[in-house]
């Protein structure tokens, strides 16, 4: 078992969080959220990896003839990507409306809801 992919996943997640916490632009913040989500892709694919294994496609190899990587996590990653596309699209649409209604996309200047 390699530890590196897990460290990469944790690093990517924390980097995205850092970007979110310090963001000065909401479009950048939505991008940072997508970075956090990329960490989940890395982690899921790392979980399913096997040394010397091939893609889990059985059109040209006989089942059981050689090891394949875990297809479940790949299905999960695909679903995750679909979820991520929806979230990013919706949040960017909201940022667009914020830019129109507030005239700014800097979270430091959005101070209507507080207290």
């Amino acid at each position, binding site marked *: 078992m390699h530890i590196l992919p897990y460290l990469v*996943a944790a690093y990517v*997640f924390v980097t995205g*969080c850092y970007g*979110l*916490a*310090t*963001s000065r632009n*909401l479009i950048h*913040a*939505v991008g940072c*959220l997508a970075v*956090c*989500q990329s*960490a*989940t892709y890395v*982690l*899921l694919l790392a*979980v399913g990896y096997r040394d010397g294994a091939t893609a889990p496609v059985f059109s040209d190899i006989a089942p059981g003839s050689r090891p394949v990587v875990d297809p*479940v*996590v790949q299905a*999960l990653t695909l*679903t*995750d990507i679909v*979820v991520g596309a*929806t*979230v990013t699209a*919706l*949040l960017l649409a*909201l*940022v667009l*409306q*914020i830019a129109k*209604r*507030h005239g700014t996309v800097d*979270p*430091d200047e*959005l*101070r*209507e*809801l*507080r*207290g």
Partner: protein
Amino acid sequence: MHHLIPLLVAVPLLGAALLVATGRVLPRIAAEITGFVVSGGTAALAVVLLLNSEPPMVEWIGGWLPVGGESVGILVVGDGPALGMATAVSLLTLAALAYAWRYFDEPLGGHSGAFTALMLVFQGAMCGFAIAGDLFNAFVFFELMSVVAYALTGYRIDEAKAVQGALTFGVVNSLGAYAMLMGIALLYARTGELAMTKIGRGLDATGHGGPDALVLASFVLVLTGLLVKAAAVPFHFWLPDAHAVAPTPVCMLLSGVMVELGAYGVWRVYGTVFAGPGGIPAADLTRALVTLGTLTAAIGAVMCWYQRHIKRLLAYSTVAHTGLFLVGLGILTPEGDDGVALYILGHAGVKAALFACAGVLLDRFGSVDEHALHGQARRLRATGVMFAVGALGLAGLPPFGTALGKSVTEEAVGGPLTLVFVAASAITAGAVLRVTARVFLGLGPRPEDAEYETSGSDEEPETSGLLSRIPDTMTTVPAVLLAAAFAAGVAPGFGAVVARSVNEAGSGGAHVFVHWTLTGVLLGVASSVLAVALAGLAVTRPGWTAAPGWAAPLRRLQSGHVGDYVAWLLMGATVLGALALPGVLGS
């Protein structure tokens, strides 16, 4: 019968697809009736399934049954709590749709079915989360209900506050969901399973006598996601911002059931995944949930008291009550689970009714500001009475369903924690009674404005222009909801039925007899009296109950800045890990 469980998700989703496809040509009335039929049909199905949920049902979707104990199929469970939550979700969606009848007079972009379709997707997603039997589908439905909730919160896209609240809600909740997915991936790495019960067994088999760092990490990550949804301190900052700006029918669902689904998720995931010897020891979960729950109840109650924006005030009262739910679940006794289940049901009715009344104010006066509306709503007698009754329900005045749930939970937690229950419910109910006295009765002097707060003036009414007359649906719906919350407490045997189905699913059949006790009734009456006293004091002596100096830093934390909320989320995850650490070190 169990083959019908997936329909709880499929029917609302198909109904929504139908509305989206035909919404542009369909007249508005046809779109809304379709929404009623689909939502009501799902509710009826949920009730029928709930009545047949003994013994608990399990369904592998599409007939992908396990072979030799291994399965790649999708599992849904139909036990009492799952179907009970699905029923509560469906009935409340039906109520919200009825309330929204003739509500938004200009359909968005000429699409008459848009709002109804979104509400149906929301219903389907919440039902899906309730019945999900494997963690990955729980995540998918968690994200689906979150995304629809962001869209519904920002439904009035021309309003500056609405889109800002929706974005904050979106960023914080999605980040929580991704943390949860990281945790699920770690659990899959350890056990090779996604079904919750099988992960639990896998952890016990590979645990070698106790949890290790990986189990702790996955526990913290999964619980972070669920507690963000449940709005536990310090993950709660998104909730007041979102609830203050969302359209009123949406608030009814957000506060009434969606936040509670987070607490339900904590109960379900801990009970089936982490409760075994390879998971997190019970003492650690109790420490984590009771600490965070008490903190949540305290901060929610204090912040609730100092609000003047009525919808924000109700949102903080939801925060305070979720704290109480987490304390009740955290002590891990069958009595605590039963009490919380009853409390959640009663709270859903009461809180949705209160939001519905706040919506009447918004559409009649274009404001939900306690100070600006001082004495304005004297003529809305029915709404005022319902607001006061709702406040007493919130305080837990017997025989409301909230009172029964609260008294059972109080008996279960015992000791000084009982005081937390009495205080949090009395303060939040006192704040609502104070609003009633000022807005509907015009009592007391008009209070002075504070420096750092969100006022509720200059809000756009959600109907086309201000209403001169309140439609019957907008007064009938809160009345029915309050009646339901009342009936949950007085209907003979209701508590026992809820308790039996919760225990059957959660505590291995350790049946508990749930009933009114003298102590519980007295504590409920004490909370109500305290609430009335607090409200009276606030109205007659505004100076005494104005925000003291120590509350100001607490209010500054709610900065409306999404970056701050993300930093709090990370800190909360760290605290959660620290609270659960001793059990891992000790094993």
